[in-house]
């Protein structure tokens, strides 16, 4: 009887969907498209922070760019009323991530921070996650990349360098999040303070279009921004429950 109870208990536990509501954190990024100028500072910041390889002209020509965050550009209208809009596109760290379920070896899964993690040394390179991702933000190492000496001296020791045949993507600068949590622990705090940790892109954004924080904390900036009427998810219809929230651009002919 007792056994049955225990069994049923754990059965119910493991049958429960949406476990991500019970994670310690729910790291969230908001991107205000009305502020974004498309300058690309975030792109370079990410490359510097995360040891993203220099792919080279030839490989870029073959469509193998490696930028965990990229600026997509979309034109509206024709001359003289053409308008250009930018949208930074990075891993959305979806709570219902299509890429996670498809990986046969669990190389990508949801961790306790609510991050969509990519475990490089577990990846066997089926590339299915990249296919399943509707945001096209997973990048594959088609070759072993190298840095012309002494460029490699710049490599960030907190981040690994990926080998060929491995999928990689934005991590929300998990190394910084870890560090922030350690500091919090050192200071005897249970949780990381809002604004205590920022991914490289958010940190550098010149027009302060991006904010980062924990949406579980109702007072956090991101939580507030998520209540902004302009807040929306890209590709809402795919129901991936992204952790990246965009704020609508205010259209020119508003007034």
């Amino acid at each position, binding site marked *: 009887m007792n056994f049955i109870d225990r069994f049923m208990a754990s059965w119910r536990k493991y049958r429960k969907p949406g476990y991500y509501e019970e994670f310690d954190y729910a790291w969230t990024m908001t991107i205000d498209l009305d502020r974004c100028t498309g300058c690309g500072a975030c792109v370079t910041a990410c490359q510097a922070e995360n040891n993203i390889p220099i792919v080279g002209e030839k490989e870029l020509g073959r469509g193998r760019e490696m930028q965990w965050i990229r600026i997509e550009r979309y034109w509206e209208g024709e001359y003289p009323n053409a308008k250009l809009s930018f949208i930074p596109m990075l891993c959305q760290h979806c709570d219902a991530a299509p890429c996670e379920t498809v990986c046969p*070896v669990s190389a990508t899964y949801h961790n306790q921070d609510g991050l969509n993690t990519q475990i490089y040394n577990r990846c066997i*390179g*089926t590339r299915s996650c990249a296919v399943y991702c509707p945001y096209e933000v997973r990048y*594959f190492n088609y070759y072993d990349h190298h840095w012309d000496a002494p460029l490699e001296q710049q490599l960030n020791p907190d981040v690994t360098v990926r080998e060929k045949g491995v999928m990689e993507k934005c991590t929300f600068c998990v190394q910084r999040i870890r560090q922030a949590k350690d500091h919090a622990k050192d200071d005897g705090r249970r949780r990381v303070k809002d604004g205590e940790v920022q991914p490289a892109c958010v940190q550098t954004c010149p027009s302060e279009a991006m904010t980062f924080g924990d949406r579980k904390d109702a007072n956090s900036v991101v939580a507030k921004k998520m209540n902004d009427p302009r807040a929306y998810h890209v590709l809402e219809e795919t129901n991936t429950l992204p952790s990246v929230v965009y704020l609508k651009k205010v259209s020119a002919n508003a007034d």
Partner: protein
Amino acid sequence: MQTEVRQARFADVNDDVVRSLVVTGRNYYIALGIAGFVTLTCFFFPWFYQLYYGIGAAGMNSPTVWGTYLASFIFWIGLSHSGTLLSCVLHLTNSEWRKAMYRSAEAMTFFSLFVAITMVMVHIGRPWFIHWAAPYPNQMGLWPNFRSPLMFDVMAIMTYLTGSGIFIYMGAIPDFAAVRDRTTGWRHHLYVLLSLGWRGTDKEWHRLGWAYTFLAVLIIPLAVSVHSIVSWDFALSIVPGLHQTIFAPYFVVGAIYSGTAGIVTVMFVLRKYMNFEHYITKLHFDNLGKLLLLLSLLWTYINMLELFTGWFSGTSTEYEQLKYKLTGFYAPLYWEMILFCAVAPLLLISRKFRTSFVPMLILSIAINIGMYTERFLIVATTLSRQYLPGSWRVYVPSLVEISILVGSLALFVTLFLLFVKIFPSISIYEIKETMDAPKKQGDRHDT
């Protein structure tokens, strides 16, 4: 038909089959040599090159991370649906005409599965870790992710490989016994082992019959599930153009379609070069032709459905996908596929066509080219046109990919050539069953 076969006597069957095994002409060695050489140069060499430098050797790019390798994988899996599945169905419906051809058909299944699995190895980025996708206890305490459609694949294909392997072997035990007594040297020993000491007693026949039937019953749903699962690799994604409920039947039909066409090709070759004219006859081509016609119609129907879904959905993603398929970068391939797989097979309406060998051969090859194109398009068109237009990019296979595709064909041929020298490539006892057994007062032909 029967008239043709009646001339041959039981003994001749044994003679023919044993000859096909032990007597080996120069042409065979030349063929084997060429096939082996091509396999080595076009398959293994480029593959090792790719292993060394990375998947970059192939032409895949950022949105289109899947390419011809996966297309080949589906293609070979599809081809594998010829044999065993067909053979099982025909066995359960006791269709006489099956018996001359099912052995080689099943062999096709087995080897195309084998090639398909090697294609997976070629496809993935770090094949040296492929064992991580197998469920085995390990010091990491990590198990594969059984939620993944790719894991369904692993399980299904492994089962299918085992199943069809056992099926083909079990059906061949009596034949092993038959050739065992006629061969010498290493062959004799080999067949002694393979035949397990078969004597052909009524009890053994009885048990074999039962087991064989059970296997057949088990393998039919298995085969269907295998290709459904392969289709789910795609359909379970949310990629516009792949995320479709029709995919499972679509793939299964496509698989049987290309598989049947494959059988026709192989039949032709066996008949021509292994002197099985007596056993593989117009009858078989006629029936296979009818089957092909049916399948092509089915296939066309499902294709039309797919187009309709795209058009009817009205969503930008699906609609662009459709437009791209019909008029985009890959459109020529699409229309080539339609021509080969939907239009050309209509010729099969005429019995004359069905029963003439060379045209059937040509058609069957055309169909499989078309079917390969289909698989390629399924991967290429959809992946290069996904949700974010900003990341659209076309994909063109690299030389390495093409060479590996050719090489995989050669690999298949090599394996098959080896097979026909070890396995009785037609079933002796079932051929005999199709001939009418000697009657008590039947004419006594001298021994």
